[in-house]
């Protein structure tokens, strides 16, 4: 009689720690929050209200105006990252991976260092640099004769969000750079040599050979940027406070959620509406990730070396 297939208990054992930890600190709170968003305070205690909180969030202009404002700002925050951070990251990686560049390790480290800094430090340092009173920005612009271009950027509705987005770009440009750099290094030399044999060198080699090969990495970076930006909160909170001034021009979903959920100054926290906002954020991010996974990633062509 053939031996019965042994129970492969080790799979369960090895998965257990990760599954348990992830369930305890991610999955249960996530569903707890989604559950909480279906309740609200009624006349006598907490009552189940179904989707009424979402109806308020999207239907009552007092909530929906703030929500759409935050979503719009968040979208712009993301656009700036996609248009500035990721192209610069790719360009830096391409430059760093050229064999002729001296001191590549130094540049790589220098550019990556801001990424490991705390938001608190980054927010504080940049606020000081850009400060119209003590900052070095006005002085430096004066030095090159462009003092007229200086404005208290963080205090003006029209510039504040873009300024903060660029500060965030400065901080995190190291991440796409590192990922692309790794992808570029993993391109086998044979491919590049073959390209050279065919006379494709320099810039055209990057556009025609390397870029198609690193497209999957760029896709991953895009989705990481998307998730990171729509969950962003820290930098805005540190630089502009929970009211995301001036006049809510830097209010993103994270700060809107914080004010609602935890309260602010005299505003008491409202865990139910806060959960509804968190639920909406979860939905937006889920939607974005799904569009990427099913719409883009499956169509990317992969090359096996």
């Amino acid at each position, binding site marked *: 009689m053939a031996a019965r297939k042994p129970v492969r208990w080790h799979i369960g054992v090895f998965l257990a720690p990760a599954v348990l930890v992830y369930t305890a600190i991610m999955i249960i709170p996530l569903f707890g929050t989604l559950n909480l968003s279906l309740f609200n305070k009624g006349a006598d205690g907490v009552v189940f209200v179904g989707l009424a909180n979402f109806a308020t969030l999207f239907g009552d202009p*007092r909530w929906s105006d703030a929500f759409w404002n935050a979503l719009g700002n968040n979208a712009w925050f993301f656009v700036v990252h996609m248009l500035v951070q990721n192209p610069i990251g790719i360009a830096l990686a391409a430059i760093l991976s050229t064999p002729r560049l001296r001191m590549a390790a130094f540049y790589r480290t220098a550019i990556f260092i801001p990424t490991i800094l705390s938001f608190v430090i980054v927010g504080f340092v940049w606020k000081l640099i850009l*400060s119209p009173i003590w900052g070095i920005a006005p002085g430096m612009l004066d030095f090159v004769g462009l003092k007229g271009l200086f404005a*208290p950027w963080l205090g003006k509705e029209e510039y504040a969000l873009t300024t903060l987005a660029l500060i965030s770009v400065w901080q995190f440009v190291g991440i796409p750079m590192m990922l692309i750099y790794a992808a570029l290094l993993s391109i086998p030399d044979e491919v590049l040599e073959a390209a050279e044999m065919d006379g494709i060198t320099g810039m055209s080699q990057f556009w025609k050979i390397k870029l198609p090969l690193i497209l999957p990495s760029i896709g991953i970076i895009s989705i990481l940027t998307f998730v990171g930006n729509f969950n962003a909160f820290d930098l805005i909170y540190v630089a502009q406070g929970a009211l995301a*001034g001036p006049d809510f021009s830097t209010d993103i979903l994270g700060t809107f959620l914080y004010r609602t959920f935890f309260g602010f100054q005299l505003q008491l926290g409202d865990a139910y509406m806060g959960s509804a906002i968190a639920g909406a954020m979860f939905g937006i991010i889920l939607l974005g990730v799904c569009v990427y996974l099913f719409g883009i990633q499956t169509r990317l062509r992969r090359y096996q070396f």
Partner: protein
Amino acid sequence: MTRTLRLALLTSTMLAGAASAQDVTLTIESWRNDDLTIWQDTIIPAFEAQNPGIKVVFAPTAPAEYNAALNSKLSAGSAGDLITCRPFDASLELYNQGHLADLSGLASMANFSSVAKSAWQTDDGAATFCVPMASVIHGFIYNKDAFDALGIAVPTTNDEFFAALDKIKADGTYIPMAMGTNDQWEAATMGYNNIGPNYWKGEEGRLALIKGEQKLTDAAWVAPFEQLAKWKDYLGDGFEAQTYPDSQNLFTLGRAAVYPAGSWEISGFNTQAAFKMGAFPPPVQAAGDTCYISDHTDIAIGLNAKSANAEQAKVFLEWVGSPEFATMYANALPGFFSLNSTPVEMQDPLAQEFVSWRGKCQSTIRSTYQILSRGTPNLENETWNASANVIKGTEAPADAAKRLQDGLASWYAPQK
């Protein structure tokens, strides 16, 4: 093993019980961790000397965590006997949940005016649940050396105020006024609620607003915004991005002449500034008008309803309500003024100046704090935003007032 452990536990409980029969220890919950040494070295020893048998422990939590930590301790039944009270809704909520005891019967409550008690009363004023400790007063602190050098007299009316600012601006040595709009709250707290009481006549207007007899769009409530709109020209370059610490530093470094202030700045400014300072109350519209000041009730102390040592705690609370405590507290923390009706002798000249206004002006509290900031949108937060916008000139005074009124009317029945 288990039996030994149980026995040990039992013995220790009994011993602890026996100890407390002789010496009762009261624990104070507070967010004022800055004041720990003052409590330990000055206030508590003074109380313990007079009341043998009662020991007091001051156990503060970080300010930002205080409300949350206190709520969970109270629910779990592990909170201290005495609870330091935030003003208005945060403490009212605790009283309504039965965590704070009604203290209306305390004899020392008679030492406080109705305005002083309003921050820790039920809306109908029937029950008072915390003994008022201190308030902060708003006004303007100025650089006396700068005023003397430029030959400016301390302004009392609006015209004099702006004339003084014009003169400072024309001279160019000093930034006329140190304030920024980056953090927003100064615009509301040190701007709108500082100068506003002169227009809405302090308590009269504040209470009328709560009753729904006045609206934020009335002339008396729009006028402070119209004044704030004029401030823009006197603030430093790039004030839009100037933060609260920036403003403090500008003033204490002697680069700005006038600072719209709260009295809590006094001790910090005393150590930082190398020049003579003075203070003046918000200027009135015409000479001879009654002046009104924002004398905002900020801190009080109440009794945990579940305290096992309620009798001793009440002894302590009676003492907190006494003139003796008031003198001690006000001198240890200049800028936090006693709410006690008995006048308190203070050593600090700047603090004396601030508190002297109580004699000649009518006191009120910040208009947005009682009842009116319970709903969505939150009136206090909206006022921050509106005041900052008005100072920057991105929103007209009338528009800002209308927005606040619409927001308030959307949830507050008497204003509908």
